[in-house]
């Protein structure tokens, strides 16, 4: 069954910018999709349609139900969105408050919300940070806690926007390992094609608000002509493999 289905989605911002021009894609349950494309392609705009924050023309369905007919609270619990900048996502006085924010909004009693928050923090190896103010954390710690804020809502689909931005190599490895270990339907938007290659079963290439390709990750990311036409490059991992094969 397709968890997410998008048919001919169009979206224009109030200033007239046409961000999405007829996007169509689908994502089966349990699969992970990499959303790739150059800057300004419309990736973040597309992600905001998945939990009903933005609403364009066309159809967006979650488990077969049109988004506009889904209960907003249920939808936002089911489709967890991790934003590109963790400082936008961490706004409560302590880490525990931030991670419990979502479960409390879902109506869970305080004790249950606290337990969920601690479980989510343990899943991202950040339980020891629970009493810290979020703005005192390092970039890598913020990324892990931002992920925990969404995991605490126990989503069916995890949507992550640029998870490795501004991280050092150790931080990148930790986040990649974490994302790889989460067994759930995932959508990852990123410029980091090596990460997409490692984590995602299939990719969709978005440019100028349109989908230009959707298919197997390795196959799509090996198409140098396609990638170059849309401001991207073949991941280093594939280049090294190709060089290794030639030797």
């Amino acid at each position, binding site marked *: 069954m397709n968890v997410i289905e998008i048919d001919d989605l169009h979206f224009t911002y109030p200033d007239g910018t046409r961000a999405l021009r007829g996007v169509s894609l689908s994502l089966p349950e349990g699969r992970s999709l990499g959303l790739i494309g150059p800057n300004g392609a419309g990736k973040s705009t597309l992600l*905001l349609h998945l*939990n009903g*924050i933005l609403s364009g023309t066309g159809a967006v369905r979650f488990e077969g139900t049109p988004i506009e007919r889904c209960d907003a*609270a249920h939808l*936002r*619990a089911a489709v*967890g*969105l991790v*934003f590109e*900048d963790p*400082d*936008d*996502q*961490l*706004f*409560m*006085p*302590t880490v*525990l*408050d931030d991670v*419990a*924010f*979502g479960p*409390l*909004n*879902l109506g869970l009693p*305080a*004790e249950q*919300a*606290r337990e969920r928050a601690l479980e989510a923090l343990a899943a991202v190896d950040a339980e020891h940070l629970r009493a810290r*103010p*979020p*703005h*005192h954390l390092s970039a890598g710690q913020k990324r892990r806690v931002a992920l925990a*804020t*969404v995991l605490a*809502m126990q989503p069916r689909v995890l949507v992550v926007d640029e998870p490795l931005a501004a991280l050092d190599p150790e931080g990148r490895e930790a986040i990649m390992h974490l994302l790889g270990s989460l067994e759930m339907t995932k959508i990852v938007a990123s410029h980091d094609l090596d990460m997409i290659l490692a984590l995602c079963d299939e990719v969709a290439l978005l440019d100028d608000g349109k989908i230009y390709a959707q298919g197997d990750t390795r196959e799509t990311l090996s198409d140098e002509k396609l990638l170059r036409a849309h401001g991207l490059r073949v991941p280093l991992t594939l280049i090294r493999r190709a060089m290794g094969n030639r030797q």
Partner: protein
Amino acid sequence: MLADLHDRYADLNSPLHRADARVKVVCAAVLIVAVLAVPIAENWRLALLAGLMVVLAAASRLPASWIGKRVLILLPFLIIAAVLVPLAPVLSPADALAVPQLGLTLSRMALSAYVAISGKCLLVLLAATLLVGATRTVDLLRAGQALGLPRTITALMGFAATYLTVLSEEAARMLTARDSRGKVRGLVRNLAVAGSMLRALMVRTFERGERVALAMVSRGYKGRMPDLERAALPLRQVLLGITFVILLALLYGFPPLS
């Protein structure tokens, strides 16, 4: 953190730090009321209260220089007020106080009023400094909420506390970028550049506010800030607060020495 404006010494281990924030806020409020309520005719009680504050400051283990810098922001105002005292008219012979060393005759009432106002200002500022220095910002906000401040107010103050640090770091990066591109010459040019930077920072702040709002809505926010329940106030902390208030009452009601 490049510009951590809060909680620099809030994690020290002292009797003041260990006290519950709710008790500290109430005791600070009672102390401030007690200071402000001292009649001008009994200015000497301010000395007793000052003695208590010095003991609290020592118990807090906050650096004296840190406390001093914050209290001494009053200095310019105290100096200006001191200059006005000799200008106050002497109302009667009984009101006159001769100061032969300065060649002045001061009004006793004016001098008493100056001592009262300046002493009270210093003590109130010292009380606030000790409270803020020995308590984490998040605990102060929770204490305020527990004591009846509306949830919206404490939430807004919490956002301000969080994002003041984020924005100050952003401003610092902008200043570094400006300085990396050579020295800006001239006052007018400097003001123009500062104005542009401020404008850019305001726009970025507004945009960040919009993104934060989206992040809140994405996690189910419906207009009311949720809160994890907090622990009940231990009896020991209640007794500590009561003891402090009794001590204040004793100092306040201490009979005159003469």
